[in-house]
């Protein structure tokens, strides 16, 4: 067995595949398949683009009869629907207009009028979703699957590698990890959990032999005004950023479930989110605004 590493940018972040295979051709073929899958999902679901599948679905869903969506999209919408229910409406894929108000590029706090205006266009409960038919009755509603798709893509990429016969390796999409399988000698992979204030600097190193690790935090696209950080985790009910953890990392049997758990805990804030993580029983690591870690993930450093 030889080790191979493939780095590539996708989904707006640095990505890598570490694979162990008998020869370079096997590793390269698995990597190509995994990259193609990640690129496919990025192309299909990126909310930064106006010309892709998601944009076409949203356009089609604005008609009186809505639009029938494909199975994969339906599965993602079902998942988003379930997360909306399980988070008491805090997880909301229609929250895009609110999220954009708090985008780093704006450099200023939104006004109350802007927030009220955005809130009027937001709300999964105002969307008609009866699988497989989606209808967006409110003008201007957009769907943002960014909170799910990267983790889903990591799991899919790992499965692509397994389907190609590479059974040992790890997929890293911007710090969200999906293990293809432990090292060929059975040892777990060493992985860094990115620090909330400096994503390039891991704040902890862990061992992971299977499943996935995902981190949700306010280090990306955070708005800093008057020395105060406003996270990109927005509570769609108030329209304001959640004041809570700086980041939450979760380990689960899949990156998708880890990511959903981490995102929901972030949205629920310190007290409720902490209780939710303990109830889930999955290994987790929270970092508070002062950079103090807590949780049940055993860190090596």
């Amino acid at each position, binding site marked *: 067995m030889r080790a191979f590493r493939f780095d590539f940018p996708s989904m707006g972040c640095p990505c890598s595949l570490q694979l162990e295979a008998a020869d370079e051709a096997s590793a390269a073929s698995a990597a190509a398949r995994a990259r193609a899958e990640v690129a496919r999902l990025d192309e299909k679901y990126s909310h930064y683009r106006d010309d892709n599948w998601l944009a076409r679905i949203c356009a089609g869903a604005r008609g009186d009869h809505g639009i029938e969506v494909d199975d994969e999209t339906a599965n993602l919408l079902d998942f988003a629907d379930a997360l909306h229910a399980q988070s008491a409406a805090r997880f909301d894929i229609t929250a895009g207009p609110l999220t954009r108000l708090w985008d780093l590029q704006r450099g200023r706090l939104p006004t109350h009028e802007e927030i009220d205006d955005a809130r009027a266009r937001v709300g999964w409960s105002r969307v008609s979703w009866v*699988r497989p038919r989606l209808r967006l009755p409110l003008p201007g509603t957009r769907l943002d699957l960014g909170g799910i798709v990267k983790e889903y893509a990591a799991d899919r990429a790992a499965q692509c590698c397994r389907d190609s016969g590479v059974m040992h390796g790890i997929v890293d999409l911007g710090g969200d990890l999906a293990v293809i399988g432990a090292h060929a000698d059975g040892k777990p992979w060493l992985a860094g959990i990115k620090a909330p204030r400096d994503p390039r600097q891991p704040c902890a190193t862990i061992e992971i032999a299977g499943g996935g690790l995902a981190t949700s935090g306010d280090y990306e696209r955070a708005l800093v005004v008057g020395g105060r950080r406003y996270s990109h985790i927005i509570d769609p009910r108030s329209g304001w950023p959640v004041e809570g953890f700086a980041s939450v990392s979760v380990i689960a049997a*899949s990156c998708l*479930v880890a990511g959903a758990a981490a995102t929901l805990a972030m949205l629920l804030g310190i007290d409720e989110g902490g209780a939710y993580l303990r109830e889930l029983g999955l290994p987790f690591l929270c970092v508070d605004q002062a950079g103090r870690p807590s949780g049940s993930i055993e860190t090596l450093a």
Partner: protein
Amino acid sequence: MIHPSASLSALLGAAASLLPAAHASAASTDDAINRASYRFSDYDEDALAPASVIGDGKRYRVLSQVFGLDTRIADGRFDLKLDATHEVMSGSSPWFVLPDAQQRPIQVLSGATIRDHRSALSAALTSDPGARSNTTWSAAYSAERDYHALSAGVERRQALGDALTLGYGGSFSHDVIEPTDAALDDRIARATKNSASAFASLAWVLDRDSVLQAGVQLNAEHGYLTDPYKLFSYADAIIPEHRPGERAEGAALLRYRRSFAQIDASLHVDYRYAQDSWGLHSHTLEVAWYQGFGSGWRVVPALRYYSQAAARFYSPFALVADGRVNYSSDYRLGTFGAFSTSVNLRKAIGRWELSIGAERYHSAHGLALDGGNAAVPALVDFTRAYAGFDFGFE
């Protein structure tokens, strides 16, 4: 199985349709890939009412113990399951039926109390465990003083796209019957029976919460299919019963599974229809509800209904010699219906899972959906209680 909390179940349930099947199912169990289990059960048939019985009305009782081991071998590429069973059977069993003066049936039970042991070993090897496509080879051997059975089978599961799984396979069994006291009681000294079975099924993932499976099964038996211990009251004579030397059976089944992740529950509904060349046909409907209560508690109440129409050659007795070739008064070939209610309680404590349960079974001629009017005097009611544990280890 170690059960996840309600909120984790809800999360896993929601994610299931987006994950490869292997990972969705692996996610719902605990990480331990090796399991040892033990179960003790006590099956106890009710005594027959003495008024219509000759002999000891105390019927069959079976105490059984099953040891199981489920382990990954060859770097996880294969899953090996081993089961060892030991049973002790005692009591008397229905022997033949006599007509009384009004031609009503009187059940005669075997006079001597039977006491026997059965030991069985079975092994199943699955390649690519956890993958959506895999193959299982199995073999089993069962031995009693008067009965030996050797069987082997193979089963293949094949994913057809994301939402469809094809299953198919077959098995073969060779049984040897060597009745006790053969010379004394005019029984056959040694006989054999061969059985072959083939099946195919399709499972559809309907949505993230539900799966529907439909299947067909064909069974063929050839050889000595008669019960060597049963007699038949034929006109004025009491003679060994006699059944055809061949039997073909076709069965269709439907299984529906629906999970209600938000309340940590799931519904299982199974239906089976079977018809054979002896004229027997049967319906089985079973409904079970799996309910988690957090902290590792789980309760499974279940209800099963069964209805059978008699084999053509079944009758309690023959009053006149009518030249029939096959004849049996075995109640298991008569027309009857049955209700079974059961409840199973499980509690996970770390790597242990404790399980206790009980089942009550009641059968009666009047519960059948259809079938002949021939009386079936020896229909059984029984109670089964069991307790056991599972232990998961790395």
